[in-house]
Each structure stands twice: as C-alpha cells, then as structure tokens.
C-alpha cells in the first residue's frame, strides 16, 4: 500500500506536504540542477515586491551554532522581472508555486498582490509581514495583532489567489497574532520566520553583519518553531505551514504532529541541496513503516 502523501492548503492540493522556504531556494532554478522540482509539494519563491529592491550591504550572512543569521534585506528584481523570468521558468514543472510577497507599506503589499492576480503560475500567495526591516509607525507589522488583521484584510481583498500570512516569532504570544490573521481572513498561516539575532566579530570588534542584526534560522530554532506551531494549531482553524530548522524527515514530522498541514525546508538547503527530497522520502518511509494510510492522519496528532 502506497501511503497518501497529498495535503490540501486553502483548496490547493499539494502532491506532498514539503515545500521550500522563501528566500532559501531562489525560484528553484539554481536548485533544479540538483533536485527534480516535479517532486516537491510546492516551490515557495523568494520575496518579491512591486518594484526592485537592492537589499542590504554585505556581509549579509554569518554562521552561528547549528544556524545562521541573514540580513539579505529582501533584495529582489521586482514583480515584473520576477513574473517574466521566474514564474515563466516554473511553468515547465508539475508542482505548486507559492509566491512570497513583501512590501514597505500596506499599499505596496496590495500593489504587488494586484500585479500577481493575473499570474496563472502563482497558486498561492505568502505574505511576509515578519520582515524586521519593514516597519510602519515604528513597529514591524508582524508584531501587532491589529496591524496584522488590517493588512491581512487589505491583501485578501486584492488577492485572486488564497492568502497565507507568514508570521514572525519575535512576539510575546504568537497565538494572538495567528488569531488576528485568521480574523483578517487569512486562508492559512506560515510560521516561523527568523528570530532576530546578532553576532559580533570579537577580532574586529564590530558587527558580523553590515545590518547589525539579522534573522536566525536553521536547526537551532527548530524547537521554538515546533512550540509555536503547536500553540497556534490549538488556537486557529486555518491550516498551518510549519518551518524553522527542518533538516530531515524527523524534523518535518515533528512539525506535522505539532499541527502543521505542510512544512517548508529553508536553511538546510544550503548544507545539502537535496534536503527537500530526503525529507519527502523520509516521511513516506515513516508512513510505510508505521502503516499509516495518509500523512494527513498525523497532522496535530500530538496534543
């Protein structure tokens, strides 16, 4: 018996629950030399905004114990080039495409989402409201429940595709934020984005990143991500896409058992380009060994 690996997110059927985390996989093109993109549940593309963004100065990354800090600063070529080049490239593959969207203001988000409305290759939109560099009135969008509800509602109104809100872990109570996104009309949640961190270069006595702070990702943050997914799974009804430090099938299964309907693999792609495929194969092997008919049976099974 072949176990059923398919899952559904906001009405979109994925052949399996494993996607790539935005910003770690480009638009799949570079990784396609190593991985058959047809195997993925979905490709989640690098954050795109309505116009090109230059990003932050370098150094943009540094390594930390079992993790890394990044402050890429959402460099992207803008929606137009993205659609013409990256979405076009993805047309040849039989996988879903989640387009990650960023902006400096509600207007910019809405503008970008509108531009994407006619892009057939964009199956789902993932709205990154957790970018630490994106602020409105001094607070990042992602840490204020009211702001989250408002921006969700605004994006929802403009979007043709189902909307996934991507949450920041840098908050006291992520359940409040999750509920606000749900109240705003979100079709699903992605969590977690990176945790703000800092590294100091003690030899040069300066910040390791030009941007001073950066986002911590990788296996180091996995326990925090699992906890937050578990908390939100108890608090909202919409599906959750879990991410943060997944590097193998075990980490993905933890997320799923905590309540995620699907997962994304990010930083681990940098250590092994084929991580996503290993995770997919590992989940299937687990289902087979344990004679579980469908991966959906595991979603939220640990309460």
């Amino acid at each position: 018996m072949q176990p059923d690996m398919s899952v559904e997110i906001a009405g979109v059927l994925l052949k399996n629950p494993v996607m790539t985390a935005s910003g770690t996989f480009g638009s799949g093109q570079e990784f396609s030399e190593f991985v058959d993109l047809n195997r993925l549940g979905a490709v989640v593309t690098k954050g795109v905004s309505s116009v090109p963004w230059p990003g932050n100065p370098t150094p943009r990354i540094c390594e930390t114990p079992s993790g890394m800090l990044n402050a890429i600063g959402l460099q992207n070529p803008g929606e137009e080039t993205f659609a013409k080049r990256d979405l076009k490239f993805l047309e040849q593959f039989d996988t879903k495409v989640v387009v990650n969207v960023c902006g400096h203001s509600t207007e910019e988000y809405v503008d970008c989402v509108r531009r994407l409305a006619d892009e057939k290759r964009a199956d789902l939109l993932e709205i990154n409201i957790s970018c630490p560099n994106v602020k409105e009135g001094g607070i990042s969008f992602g840490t204020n429940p009211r702001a989250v509800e408002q921006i969700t509602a605004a994006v929802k109104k403009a979007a043709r595709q189902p909307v996934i809100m991507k949450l920041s872990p840098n908050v006291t109570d992520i359940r409040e934020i999750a509920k606000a996104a749900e109240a705003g009309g979100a079709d699903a949640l992605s969590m977690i984005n990176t945790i703000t961190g800092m590294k100091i270069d003690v030899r040069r006595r300066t910040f390791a990143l030009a941007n001073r702070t950066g986002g911590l990702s990788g296996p180091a943050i996995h326990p925090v991500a699992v906890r937050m997914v578990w908390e939100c799974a108890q608090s909202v009804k919409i599906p959750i896409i879990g991410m943060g430090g997944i590097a193998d099938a075990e980490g993905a299964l933890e997320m799923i058992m905590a309540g995620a309907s699907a997962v994304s693999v990010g930083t681990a792609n940098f250590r092994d380009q084929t991580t996503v495929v290993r995770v997919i194969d590992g989940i299937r092997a687990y289902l087979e060994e344990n004679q579980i008919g469908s991966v959906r049976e595991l979603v939220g099974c640990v309460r």
Partner: protein
Amino acid sequence: MQAGQETGIRAVQKFREKAEVLQNTRIAKGIYDLRLKTKQIAAAAKPGQFVSVYSNDHSRLLPRPISICGADPESGELRLVFRVAGRGTEEFSRLSAGDRVDLTGPLGNGFPESVLKGQAGKTVFLIGGGIGIPPMVQLARTLAAGDDEKGAPRLISVLGFRDELFLVDDLKAYSEVVIATEDGSCGTKGNVLDAIRGRNLKADVICACGPTPMLRALRVYAQETGAECWLSLEEKMACGIGACLSCVCKSTDIDEHSRVRNKRVCTEGPVFNSIDIEL
C-alpha cells in the same frame, strides 16, 4: 540545463560529491594542501572556479568556498590550498587520508575563455595576495599549456606574502615569479604593486586574487596602464549556487539578474572584469 541560458548563467554543470581525502599536508604556517579524489568535479573544473566544502560537524551548516588550486581530469584529483581562518578550515586541517568530505562544484564562472585562449605573444600577470595565490596555480598551468600552435603568453606571477612563502615552486613551473613580502624577508619589501613598479613590469592582461585593498589598487593600476584586468572576489556565502543572494557585490551596470546593480560572487563571479564592478 536550459535553466542556465535564460538568465545568462554559464551553463556549467555542478556536482555534489562525497570526496575521499588522498593527502593533507601543512605547507606553511596555517596553510594546508589538501588532495581529494573526486568523481566528476576535477574533470569539470576551470581555472578560477571554486568548490563548496562542507563540515562534518553538524553545528556548522554552511559550506566554505575554496578555490580550485589544481584539478586533474584524468585521475579526478582535486587540489585545494587553504589557510586556517576559523573553525571550518581548522576542521579541514585535521582531515587525513581516507576521510570523506562533501563538496559541491565546480562553482562560479572562472576566468573567461577570452583570457584562457589566444594570448600568445602577450604578457599576463598572475597576481596573488596571500591565500589568493592558490587559484593562480591552476590558471598558470592552463595558460602555460597555450591553446594552439602559436604558443603561450609570457606569464609573470606576482605573489604577495605576509611572511612564510608557499606555492612558489608550483608557479615557477609555469611562469616567471616575482615575490613581495611585507617584512622584506624575500623579494621586494612591500606589496605586489611595489614589486611590479620596482621591476618596471608591464602586462596586457592582469588576473588577480587576494585581499580587497590589493584588488582596488590593481583596478586603478590597470586603468592607468590600459591593461585588461580580471579580479577574483570573495564574499560570505551560504548556498554557493546563486539562490540566496548572500554574496553580492556592486556592479557598475544594472544587471539582468538582480535589476539592482548587484552581482552574485558565487555565480556571475567570483571573477569579474574590473570595469564591471565597484570595490
């Protein structure tokens, strides 16, 4: 890969391999000469390209980019020469024959065909500063082989060291060698430009790798002398294959890929024509 063509990425194939350590030798203070047996990487490697070397310790996620110092397509032997700079390279220094190490490569553009071919009669400087010297060995070997009956260019390696020398004999096998040391313990006291000016050397083409101040100075020098100048840059990398945008440098023009005057050192580089980038 049709992928490559669409963005103008050079359509070279990259391989992920578990290589076997053949030998690892300390050749100077903190400098190691690592010989690896690869299945495909050595055969595909071009001068100026690099490989991503992965740690066997799971607390270190990111690969370390190391230039290809030598590659033998027949035997599959890949030669990497590196300096112990931190925990990753410290781990690599402890590798010994029989150990396994994960690699991705060959990566980056390498020196362009226009430099590698048709240089007979010209003079080419191969300039290496410190741990920028290793890629010059593979480049010198390739250029010295020439490309047709016309023969090879005149090759002058200009090497800058802080103190202890390394790879000098390797470069002497293919080129004239000029040395500059900071402490004056060997050759010119000073930097590579002091050595060039001191001997009144001239080149048609400059190929260089080393610390940014050196590259900056060479860029200006090339403008002054009208030489063609190819610089190999360094930047912190995460993916090494062009996906994460960690490793950008500023380009003079708005490029096709980023649309924001950023070029990826791991993909559009590490070798750039000095007129195409800001330093």
